[in-house]
């Protein structure tokens, strides 16, 4: 499949959007994850709460994903 310049820039943009979101999520989850493990070690019945907090930052990568799709749509890639 041949991609023109617009398509190529859109593909790079989509990649950056996902990568940025994923890095942000990872950075946030590292702190929350370690705190969550500490909480579970002290109070094992709090695992549900810890898990819920852990997934909160995943919103960032989801936004990155949505932006990537919009960019790819605009670039005619999908």
């Amino acid at each position, binding site marked *: 499949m041949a991609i023109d310049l617009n398509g190529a820039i859109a593909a790079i943009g989509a990649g950056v959007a996902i990568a940025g979101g994923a890095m942000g999520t990872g950075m946030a989850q590292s702190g929350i994850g370690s705190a969550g493990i500490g909480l579970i070690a002290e109070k094992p*019945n709090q*695992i*549900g709460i810890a*898990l*819920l907090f852990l997934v909160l930052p995943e*919103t960032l990568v989801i936004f990155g*994903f949505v932006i990537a799709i919009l960019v790819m*749509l605009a670039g005619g890639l999908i």
Partner: protein
Amino acid sequence: MLRTERMQKVRLLCLKKDRRAVVHELHRLGAIDLRRSGLQLSDGSVGDEVQQISDMLIRVGGAIDVLRAYTDVKRRSQPTPVKHMALGTLLERLGSYSQIGETYQISAALKELDDQAEILGAAARVANALAGIDIDMASLRSDVLSFKAFEMSADQVERLKSTIGERGISAEVLASRMNGKEFGVLVAYDKKASIDDVIKGIAPRELDITMKELHGKPKEAAARIARELAENAKRRKELQARLRNLAAENLDKLLALREMLEIELEKGNASSEFKVTESAMVIEGWVPRKRTEELESRLALATSGRFEMEYIEAGEDELAPTLVNRPSFLKPFDYLMEFLSLPRSDEIDPTWIFIISFPIFYGLMISDVGYGLASLLLSWYITRITDPDGLMYNTAKIWELGAMSAVVFGVITNEYFGFQVTQLIGFQGIDWTKSITSILAITVLFGIVQVGLGIIFGIVNARRERENKLVVSRSASLVTLVSGTLAIAGGFFGLMPAGPSIDMAVLAVAALLVTIIFGGREATEVTNLITHPLSYSRIMGFGMASIIIASLIDKAFTPNWAAGPLLFIGFLIIFIALHFLNMILSIFEGIVQAVRLNFVEFFTKFYKGGGIKFRPFGYRRVYTVDADASDA
């Protein structure tokens, strides 16, 4: 549907002499959650009977614990029908239950035999180790010589002998070959000498030769101890067989009697919640409003009308307990709500929305018949092996519903472990990868609807609490959400004419300003009007990721017999392993994200939580059924 049971606080005034009848009836009815009255009266005392019950419970519980070890713990016979028995009769019956005493006696005898077997085992080891040495072990307790015994290898024996020789220690080393390459070694040395340094360098296992069981020649001692051990084992077997018999004949009866005792204990302890005068007592508590009449009529029967019931107002900061009534197959959702935070009795109960939306979100994210069926199988298996009152069991029950939904969405999208079987079923299905825009729009629409619903619930709650500014702010938020959606739908997707789209955009901005002005601290949440509905696009994100990974696995690793049997088996293993991995990831994310969308994006619009569970004064019987209730 969106409300928990309405509760009424009641105060019961009755005579002290009717205490047993009233408490028994309240307990049987299981309709009142007791609270200590704020009236300036004396507290009810627990009394001696509670101590008597506690003592007997400990005694019966101990016997049950012993007998349980001698039966199949999973076995549970039908509950025993029991009639109410006066406490004195119950205690008397248990006091004369001779099998309880016998259980304790046998248990103690077994413990003694176990201890004896342990000592005999250790003595047998020493006697066997030294069996090849011809010495009377009584002479090992000498005033002139010291003795030490060890287990060691041939190499260690040689080192021991040579070291003793090199150091000129006056000692004799007697070795006896045991089984294999090990030796039992007896070292006799002068009482004034020391072989500790020598032994330290060799580090053999030392044997205790001071045990009183060791007398006579080692070989004879070994034979005698072996006989004693056999006798010990025989006696233990007899006692264990007797315990098995006792368990088979008495365990169910004892479990039923213990349950009756526990019920009596609850009744006895309840007295501490009452307020009393010289001849009367006051009981307060919360009752479901629809059961107040039943409570009144049952108490009238139990006391021959000698009681008064009045409805009272709750205290200023007092919250009524929360009681939800849902079909039993939906109880796991209540469990999960309780696990996170129970709805308060004065707010909207959003569990039904959670019940409806969870399977939809989960099903959409998995959207595969194969993964759905595998989820169903796994969740069913988990429910078989876990405790019905535990988190795992309840999560698995919720998961079952989600798995069924995943199968339905799998059929719609024509996905079977990532394969599309169009020719087989004659149905094209909706292809995720070719319908990205539509599915994105649908998932965000889910978000708009659920977030909108959350805001409406928030308005209702604010109205109940007479927070007028919040009502205005939240209403404006709703207008912002709806008009903003229409404006974007019109402008971006061309679904509306340009004029009305602009009008909607202006309305959205105006409503947003109202939200900010009236919202106070809540105004900081306005950005969530955009981010929360958008957050629902994760349904598409995770769903598509799962489907694309599954189809990539199919493309790369579908086993082909034509490539040869070895390659076929290798590819089959990789194929199954990767699908399993993808399935586990999808399932985990599906559950967590579907729960999260409800709890974070939806509930934060209105939900306070922190409700207190309604705990009726009563007992959940396991081993007995109330025969009096069935007679009635």
